[in-house]
């Protein structure tokens, strides 16, 4: 069974703090993704990575950066947290295949509150 683990279930941070959200997967997946989920807006892609040290912007990358130093780990970084980054953050992973039809597997989510 695929396991995607997010290090924190709940986080409370102050405005201006640097925040790290960690995600680890144990299935040797090439692709990893960070989404945020907000009421009425569904899930929106922040960044994704298709290989170690490779990253691509998603639909809402502003205010975020990512790091993929090892294949199993994908970190989301909020350089200077702001209240509008209060959200549920979801990490996912999948294999790479030529036809782009490998299913995504999600972690349990991190609910971040920025005060």
């Amino acid at each position, binding site marked *: 069974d695929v396991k995607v683990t997010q290090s924190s279930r709940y986080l409370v941070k102050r405005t201006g703090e640097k925040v790290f959200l960690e995600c680890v997967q144990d299935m040797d997946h090439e*692709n990893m*993704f960070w*989404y945020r989920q907000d009421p*009425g*807006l*569904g*899930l*929106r*892609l922040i960044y*994704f990575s*298709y290989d170690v040290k490779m990253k*691509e912007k*998603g*639909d809402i990358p502003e205010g975020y950066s990512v790091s993929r130093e090892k294949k199993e780990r994908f970190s989301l970084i909020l350089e200077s947290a702001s209240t509008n980054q209060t959200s*549920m953050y*979801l990490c*996912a992973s999948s294999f*790479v295949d030529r*036809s*782009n*039809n*490998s*299913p*995504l*597997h*999600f972690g*349990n*989510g991190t*609910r971040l509150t920025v005060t």
Partner: protein
Amino acid sequence: GIQVEQSPPDLILQEGANSTLRCNFSDSVNNLQWFHQNPWGQLINLFYIPSGTKQNGRLSATTVATERYSLLYISSSQTTDSGVYFCAVRGGATNKLIFGTGTLLAVQP
């Protein structure tokens, strides 16, 4: 990019009732998944179904790729089925999975 629309936006059922959730998408896709997000926020992979029909217990799904829609059927609903059901698609050369805004299901005892 691909647009994904889900209907209905919310649904209230009595335990034991059946329901059909719909997902329409605006372009051809090579990946379609249905997810259930439980009240604790966990996203559970229900079906990976870019085309055809699959069944898993009381749940089944059908995707008609040529007509750009997918249906999720829930039979004999239970209170544990409550939560948000998301459809998500991926098309073309992109790795991005695009989500619909979900259907909020509440099953009452």
